[in-house]
């Protein structure tokens, strides 16, 4: 017969304890998220209506809708993506597929990770100096989106590099040994198998970009501008800044309005994350090795 020793019993007890501890921590994590969502839905829900989503704000933003902010956020995000994704993916491809593994490359990789940690207000000041003033884009969607793009570039690079690195080296070696160039290998084997991961990273970036306030405040977002932007050199309203403005800068805003804006914003972000999760599930289902 097998007898459990005292050590066995102790191990089992400790195992149970840690399991409980980790479960508890997970609940602690879920709690605030659930609370935030709950509060937003209860208090912001009544504000949501057709009119709220699709009309201009009126009466000094104390009534009416949020259409210009909604459209403005979409503009900002799309232009930021167009600017950051090609550059970020290309840089990641270079760093992970071409660059020699030397000290310089490692330093650059480290710098990119650190860049991701630069506070967004610093990016805002950089964007103001570089895009608004130096390149003379003025306060515009272009300047704001480029600022957002610079800010999110490290995220795109890191996400892309990580998904490139999930493709086993053996596949690359097999291709190289056949006489394939690095680019042929990337196109035929590496990219097709990394693309879903890259898209996941991009979508996460979108959700982050759409919530940023500081980088767009000085560079292209307006307090109040009841028109839809006509081009990238226009200024625009944005959801995040609008939320900030009506919660702190404008008197007599009805209580449900900021909550309504926040609810719309967080719904956008969650929808985006949902798509990204769906991609990941799809990716796992299609795993080819």
């Amino acid at each position: 017969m097998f007898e459990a020793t005292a050590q066995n019993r102790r191990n089992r007890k400790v195992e149970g304890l840690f399991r409980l501890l980790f479960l508890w921590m997970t609940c602690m994590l879920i709690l605030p998220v659930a609370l935030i969502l709950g509060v937003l839905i209860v208090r912001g829900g009544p504000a949501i209506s057709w009119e709220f989503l699709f009309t201009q704000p009126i009466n000094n933003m104390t009534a009416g809708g949020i259409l210009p902010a909604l459209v403005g956020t979409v503009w900002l995000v799309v232009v930021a993506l167009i600017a950051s994704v090609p550059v970020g993916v290309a840089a990641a491809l270079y760093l992970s597929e071409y660059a020699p593994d030397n000290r310089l490359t490692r330093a650059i990789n480290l710098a990119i990770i650190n860049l991701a940690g630069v506070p967004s207000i610093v990016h805002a000041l950089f964007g103001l100096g570089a895009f608004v003033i130096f390149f003379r884009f003025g306060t515009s969607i272009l300047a704001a989106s480029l600022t957002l793009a610079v800010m999110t570039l490290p995220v795109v690079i890191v996400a892309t590099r990580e998904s490139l690195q999930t493709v086993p080296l053996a596949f690359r070696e097999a291709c190289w040994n056949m006489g394939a160039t690095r680019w042929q290998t990337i196109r035929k084997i590496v990219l097709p198998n990394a693309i879903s991961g890259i898209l996941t990273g991009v979508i996460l970036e979108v959700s982050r970009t759409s919530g940023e306030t500081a980088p767009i405040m000085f560079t292209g977002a307006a307090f109040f501008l009841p028109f839809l932007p006509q081009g990238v050199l226009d200024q625009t309203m944005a959801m995040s800044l609008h939320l900030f403005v009506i919660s702190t800068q404008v008197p007599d805003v009805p209580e449900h309005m900021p909550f309504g804006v926040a609810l719309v914003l967080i719904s956008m972000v969650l929808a985006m994350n949902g798509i990204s999760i769906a991609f990941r599930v799809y990716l796992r289902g299609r795993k080819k090795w």
Partner: protein
Amino acid sequence: MSVPVRVSEAAGFAIEVEDLAIGYHGKPALSGVTLQVPTQEIFGIIGPANSGKTSFLRAINRMDLMTAGMEVSGSVRVEGRDVRSWRNPYALRQRIGVVFPLPVGLPLTIYDNVALSSRLRGTRKKADLDVIVERCLRRAALWDEVKDRLDSLGSLLSGGQQQRLTIARALSQDPSILLLDEFSIAVDPVTTMRIEEVLAELKSEMTIVLVTNLVQQARRLASRTAFFLTGELVEVTETETMFEGGAQDPRTTAYVEGKFG
């Protein structure tokens, strides 16, 4: 060291290596290798782990260019031409098929795995590709097992099948030299025997360098065998002689008789 070879002049050498040394990040892995591989024969390489066999193969098709920190000195001539004089190493690698210890089914369909090399070279016509795919799969003794599912993923085949797929893919390059690195390490004995039969047939068309961890496999297939030991070429001898106790170095005899260390 000089190696006695008896090959007709006409046949010549597919690979000539002179004073080859290989290191990684300045640490030597293999040094002082001089040997010749005659065309259209199977040349065996045996030796314990870490003796530099894989490194040797990588120097032949210039994979040192793709390997961080790998340094090669001395000369390697393939079909009479120094591999470092090829301005286009990709063209060199296309002429040399490689099979790895662990099978590598690329995450493509079986068909695309075998068609890949031709496509990379610009063949687009489906009819041409069909012919190539069928011929290579047949020669790798895999056709009958996969002919009805050419559209399924190559990476989902069994290990033994994937190894034959790898061989089919190497053959699709229409190589004049085939480098095999311990191909049977993850393959069952029956599949190993089948692949060995394939190799024996291929010998009449191409030069095969067979690195093997099974000394008996070298005995079955190779006309000549080299023994590598801790980064050094001990000797190259006719395989039969080597296994009949006629090796030049007592270490070789000990190794092939399994009395090593």
